[in-house]
């Protein structure tokens, strides 16, 4: 028999309230993306029904006027490369920083911490000039332009990733690594066979954030990607928002079109995210 205590009920009330604040605005936008033009301002809370204001017109207009498929391709390509690179490079660095004792360790630590503070606006102009000199920025070649976005995005995600991973690698018991070493593993084997599985949850966390930040970043992409076929999904949305004016239905539909695939992937990955997050606890 389970008893529902007042404390438990209160817990659920608080948790549900916050869940509503994150969920309801999106529900509202979805509802209004199906609403006929002009009705949003008067009555935005009802559920649009066939014959009672329901329309697909907003979506038809959005799909017709903007090239979503190509933009998704570009966005995914950039984000996947950034994620893989960040996980590999940051994992290595965090491991080296946590386990080895060396003379410049303090300095390296400060460099990583301070790297978190740099607003991207403060580095973008010199980065652009440097990449232009290398011939990858504004070269007119689509793949090189994407690379020009990928490189600074990797650097921008690294510090956060290293800091998070350091925190978790520190909590991996060192005895495991030592006994593996006694059994003849060298350092790289220790890293791939002991550290990575043990800190799996935090690697998952880091990968997810690297992907999302890269995918959602407007500023860097806006700077390097100018040609229509290089456009990513956030750039497309930005363009729509400046063209839609007071067509709120079109805006709502575009927001849904751009958010929906991310959500689908998110809901699918959710199982693995949670598994990743909790796996650490089992190994403790």
């Amino acid at each position: 028999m389970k008893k529902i205590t007042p404390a438990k009920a209160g817990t659920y009330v608080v948790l549900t309230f916050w869940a509503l604040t994150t969920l309801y605005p999106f529900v509202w936008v979805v509802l209004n993306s199906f609403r006929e033009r002009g009705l949003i301002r008067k009555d935005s809370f009802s559920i649009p029904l066939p014959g009672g204001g329901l329309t697909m017109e907003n979506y038809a207009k959005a799909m017709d006027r903007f090239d979503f498929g190509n933009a998704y391709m570009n966005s995914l390509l950039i984000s996947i490369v950034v994620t893989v690179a960040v996980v590999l490079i940051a994992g290595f660095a965090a491991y080296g920083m946590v386990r080895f004792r060396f003379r410049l360790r303090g300095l390296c630590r400060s460099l990583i911490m301070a790297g978190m503070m740099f607003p991207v606006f403060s580095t973008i102009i010199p980065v652009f000039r440097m990449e232009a000199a290398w011939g990858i920025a504004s070269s007119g070649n689509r793949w090189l332009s994407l690379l020009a976005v990928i490189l600074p995005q990797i650097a921008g995600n690294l510090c956060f990733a290293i800091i998070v991973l350091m925190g978790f690698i520190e909590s991996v018991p060192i005895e495991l690594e030592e006994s593996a070493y006694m059994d003849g593993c060298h350092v790289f084997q220790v890293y791939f066979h002991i550290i990575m599985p043990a800190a799996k949850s935090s690697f998952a966390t880091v990968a997810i954030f690297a992907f999302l930040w890269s995918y959602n970043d407007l500023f860097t992409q806006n700077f390097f990607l100018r040609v229509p076929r290089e456009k990513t999904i956030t750039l497309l949305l930005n363009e729509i928002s400046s063209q839609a004016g007071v067509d709120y239905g079109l805006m709502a539909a575009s927001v849904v079109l751009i958010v929906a695939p991310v959500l689908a992937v998110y809901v699918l990955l959710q199982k693995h995210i949670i598994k990743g997050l909790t796996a650490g606890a089992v190994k403790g």
Partner: protein
Amino acid sequence: MGSTLYRKKGPLIAFLLPAFLFLLLFLYYPFVQNILNSFSDITGLGAPAQGLNDPWYVNYATLLTDPKLRTALGNTVLLTVCTVAFQVGIALVLALLVDSIRVGAQLFRTLYFFPIVISATALGLMFNLIFLYNGGMLNQLLVNLGIAAENIDWKDADHFLLTMFSPVMWQYVGFYFVILVTGLNNISQDLYEAAALDGCTGLKRVRFVTLPLLRNVLCTCLVLAITGALKVFDLPWVMLGAGMPQDQGWLTGTYMYDQTFNRGNVDYGSAIAVLIVVLGVLFSNVANRVFKPRSDL
């Protein structure tokens, strides 16, 4: 730390080199370049520097007297305080609550994390629809429920801080929530059982077992929250634009962007960027002092 495994320093180079190569090339070199820019005379994005400013520190002198920058700093400090108090605070409460339940824990995690998946551009558009003066979600809700007699202008001088801050804080609660929940999961159940044997349960357990063990993770969250608040840009920019209303709504991030990219004051923008970094280092050092991470935990 006398492990024999880590005595040989050879592999260390391989571990650290890629990361620091990226940091030096794409963060530190451009940033040093940026400091130089802040002393030079640059009038356009593509334009090369036309020698040093006269006097060379003129941008930093302007920083001290610029009233808009003072507004931006005030707003940003306020945002930082709110971020630490509400963002990390709410996240901690939610994380502790979710950690204490079984049924639905996964659902709540999914829902809380969810705003972070969405790009700030999309969120900015969404919140513009929500805060719309004529027929926005909030005004319709308040008027329909009879809380407000008439539509409220959410972007006027009385409300813009709320309008600007709440989406920023709301979006990232889930972020700190996930980090804290991961930290909570890493606390061994044995410790809780031992604490329970000693009669330590409920709030007491939170106070004497959970929070001390969570200290390092909390510290990470605080540093991230502070440096994040100083860099906030896209949501306020999409929602309020350049310093609305009447130059009261600047943040250091938006003001710097405006100076650099809209007004062609590239060198002054660089000086503001330097200021942002200095403040970030200062603030997070204070946070580190106050909530010192402990190596024995």
